[in-house]
């Protein structure tokens, strides 16, 4: 991993700005701050209340190719359903927004010409986990094995600091009922009084359910649609990937 990929000064567009920018000092709360070496920051985060040690970059982020999305909302619905089934917030962590600049894959467009113009968006599993350092509990965690940034809802006190620090938004029009949306990608669930974000279905055998149940993915795997990649795929959350994701 290159230093440039994890140096906090390389704040992504939209990252918190102002008097208290998200700096390494804020990220590395506690003793590690004194070390100050980029190499340390690259491999470990820690905070006084929650001594999490993890690799900085998540092994996985849900990466979507809008040109392969027909807006069927299987990802949204299954995300919500699965999380509710294991007792977590039913808020859909992945949302499908409309985007009339998207050009549909030619094979899909031949049979589904009216199903173009969608862009799936979810938590980008930021290579620098902006949402984590200000969490006053162990609500936001990093999985030590995979680097997944996830919310442990049993620890979440709904203070909203993760939402404030989240640098990415859902902004536009949802495919579902054309509702407007303007929200961070860490979202408040008023039903459970917790915050929710894409946790890559942590604990689910088979990985993220959105990737597993995307019907276009199934068609690609079966060879009906020619594509060298899936509509919804899992990729490492590098800076390059971060910039590429919607």
């Amino acid at each position, binding site marked *: 991993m290159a230093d440039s990929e994890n140096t906090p000064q390389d704040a992504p567009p939209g990252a918190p700005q102002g008097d208290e920018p998200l700096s390494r000092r804020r990220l590395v709360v506690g003793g590690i701050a004194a070390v100050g070496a980029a190499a340390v920051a690259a491999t470990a985060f820690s905070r006084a209340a929650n001594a999490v040690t993890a690799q900085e970059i998540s092994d996985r982020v849900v990466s979507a190719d809008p040109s392969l999305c027909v807006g*069927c*909302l299987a990802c949204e*619905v*299954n995300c919500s359903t699965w999380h509710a089934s294991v007792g977590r917030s039913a808020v859909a962590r992945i949302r499908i927004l409309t985007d009339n600049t998207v050009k549909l894959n030619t094979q899909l467009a031949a*049979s*589904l010409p009216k199903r173009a113009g969608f862009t799936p968006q979810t938590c980008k599993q930021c290579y620098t986990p902006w949402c984590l350092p200000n969490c006053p509990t162990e609500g936001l965690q990093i999985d030590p094995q995979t680097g997944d940034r996830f919310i442990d809802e049993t620890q979440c006190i709904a203070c909203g600091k993760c939402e404030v620090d989240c640098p990415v938004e859902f902004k536009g029009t949802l495919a579902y009922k*054309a509702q407007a949306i303007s929200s961070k990608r860490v979202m408040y669930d008023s039903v459970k009084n917790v915050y929710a974000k894409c946790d890559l279905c942590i604990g689910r055998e088979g990985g993220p359910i959105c990737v597993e149940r995307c*019907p276009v993915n199934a*068609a690609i795997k079966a060879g009906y649609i020619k594509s060298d990649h899936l509509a919804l795929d899992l990729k490492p959350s590098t800076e390059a990937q971060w910039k590429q994701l919607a």
Partner: protein
Amino acid sequence: MKRFEHLNAGSVDEAVKLLSAQNARAIAGGTDLLGVMKDQLLPTDRVVNLKTIPGLDYIKEESGELRIGALAKIADIAASGVVAQKAPALTNAALLVASPQIRNMGTLGGNLAQKVRCWYFRDVDRADCYKRGGGFCYAVLGASDLHAIFDGAACFAVQPSDTATALSALGASIVVAGPGGQKTVGVDDFFIGPHTDYTRETVLAQDEIITEVRIPASALGQPSLFIKAAPRKSIDFARGSVAVLLVGSPLIQSARISLGGVAPTPHRATEAESYLAGKRLTADVIGQAGTLAANGAQPLASNDYKVQLVQGLVRSALTRLAG
């Protein structure tokens, strides 16, 4: 057929209690449930007969509303003078439900609570369909002639009930009995789409039943109409249908337009409704209302025809009401 126990309920409370057992299902006319059971589409260990509950098949005016018991037969609703006079859209819909034999057996409650007719759901070999407890919808990239052009989400099966479409336009509400007592739910809230829960079509929990349908005073006696399009006109489920209620003539004060067979729930054409308010039914207005009724449609591979169908049905219904 798999074995199951059959129990007669003597009252609404008893029915609710009996339905709390695992895989228990309510039966009235049975015209939908028996097909589901024969094909073993859904696990059924107990069938609770509601026909033995006395006094739930009435059609009457009360407190200014038209009230219809859930066990009223579709044929009785179709033949009812008070329904024809007060809520003609429901008469139209009842007359167009399936065949005379099914109308003689089927009840209003059952018609509202029936399962979807998606050909993948009804195919015994497609156990991975969402509505069968699986995690796949064949219609998204498959044959989608029968499927939703509005509000599909993971599952694209459409709400098949003709009476639901009519009652949606009439602004009716549905009385539901369950373990916690009775509650009244507006028709548009009674039906839920797959975005909320893809395993069911209504808010009914397993141990809840419909007891009554109420059509409000504001709709009674107003011009209303239901028409539908189906390949086999005398018997088939709607490929598309529309129910319209107009208040005010010749200047329309308000309109309610509900579309059937094109969405997972009765689909209100709200843009067309808003457009009609304050207008007279001229040819131009009718044409534009039809266009607006299809706004927001997102057809799949083989149901693009439903966009034109919806537009044509709305224009036909409004033209007939303009008389």
